[in-house]
């Protein structure tokens, strides 16, 4: 069951490398020859070559969908069965509702949610006007406060998660293509450093679980590669949508560390980096996971 840490292979004889590299395929979930086609029409990429910037740390990237049981996987294949879609419908109502002093709704500028197709696939991205990397949540609040004269949503609040689920859902099937170069490069480096830093009493980094032990279990949790292409995700364990920063906070708290907050610069940098680890997979949000 152990996945060979590719970094250690340099210490072993060169001959062994070629055969040991396939050890991870003996896991029951990866290589199951499954496919995810939502509603019989949206074809998802759940397995693909790892992006170049990973530099061999991973050779293949997998969507979190691959690691779940057949029953959980089936729930995502149909919008009627996907509990996350209930929240998308609630956000559709909010999209058409006038809020704030300007008397505008999202629809006043954006016409319909479908016009935002493409956003989820390329965010987080550099925002020239604000001189920083912008996440979808920040963009929603920018519209609310600067253009609608309304109160911002809490970064990890229910209405915000509903809205990001809607924005993700209209981009489903699109290839994730988040930029790592240009003005966002420095933030991206910060994010990468956080990803490989050990935190907490348990001294665990993201990489320890999601790069070196995906496919294995940590207690009762079946580890994925920690990709975020399916976020916000409907988790069966708390019967609601979960955001990226919410999950980051949960993970760092699980190492028994004082965690960063949703919306903090650290999590924005980390989200940018983790998003690019999934470049090549498709947008799946809202997905269904444990």
């Amino acid at each position, binding site marked *: 069951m152990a996945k060979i840490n590719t970094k250690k292979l340099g210490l072993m004889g060169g001959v062994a490398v070629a055969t040991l590299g396939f050890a991870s395929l003996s896991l029951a979930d990866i290589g199951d020859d499954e496919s995810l086609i939502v509603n019989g029409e949206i074809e998802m990429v759940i397995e693909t070559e790892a992006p170049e910037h990973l530099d061999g740390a991973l050779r293949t990237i997998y969507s979190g969908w691959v690691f779940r049981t057949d029953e959980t996987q089936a729930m995502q294949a149909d919008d009627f069965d996907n509990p996350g879609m209930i929240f998308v419908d609630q956000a559709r109502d909010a999209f058409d509702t006038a809020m704030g002093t300007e008397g505008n709704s999202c629809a006043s500028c954006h016409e319909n949610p479908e016009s935002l197709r493409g956003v989820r696939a390329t965010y987080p991205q550099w925002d020239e006007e604000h001189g920083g990397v912008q996440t979808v949540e920040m963009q929603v609040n920018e519209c609310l406060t600067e253009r609608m004269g309304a109160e911002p949503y809490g970064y990890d609040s229910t209405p915000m998660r509903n809205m990001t689920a809607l924005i993700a859902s209209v981009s489903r099937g699109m290839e994730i293509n988040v930029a790592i170069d240009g003005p966002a490069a420095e933030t991206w480096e910060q994010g990468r450093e956080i990803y490989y830093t050990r935190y907490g009493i348990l001294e665990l980094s993201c990489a320890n679980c999601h790069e070196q032990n995906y496919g294995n279990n940590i207690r009762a949790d079946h580890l994925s590669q920690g990709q975020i292409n399916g976020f916000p995700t409907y988790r069966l364990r708390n*019967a609601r949508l979960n955001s990226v920063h919410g999950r980051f906070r949960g993970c760092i708290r699980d190492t028994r560390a004082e965690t960063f907050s949703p919306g903090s610069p650290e999590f924005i940098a980390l989200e940018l980096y983790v998003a690019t680890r999934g470049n090549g997979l498709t947008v799946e949000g809202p997905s269904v996971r444990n």
Partner: protein
Amino acid sequence: MAENVTPRVRVPREASAGETISIRTLISHPMETGQRRDGDGNLIPRSIINRFVCSFNGETVLDVTIEPSVSTNPYFQFEAVVPESGTFTFTWYDDDGSVYEETADIAVN
């Protein structure tokens, strides 16, 4: 008082006479059990959908008494034999007195 309660159903549009079809229903509802406490330690009162009825051309197909153990957004999937063309009517009864209804037509050849 539950907000944003939206029912939805999935019924095949057509079937052959006597065929068994699969029906799926879903209603978005928090299904507050009455066991949870809020931040101040007070019990949050029970507020659930307590009954779900499915009928076809006036005849009852399914009548479910729902208890607080059923979780948020109750989802029911069941099978029904369709003898003729007609309309399925789905009704959900809320603790607070609200009644939600949804219908679906089916053509039988």
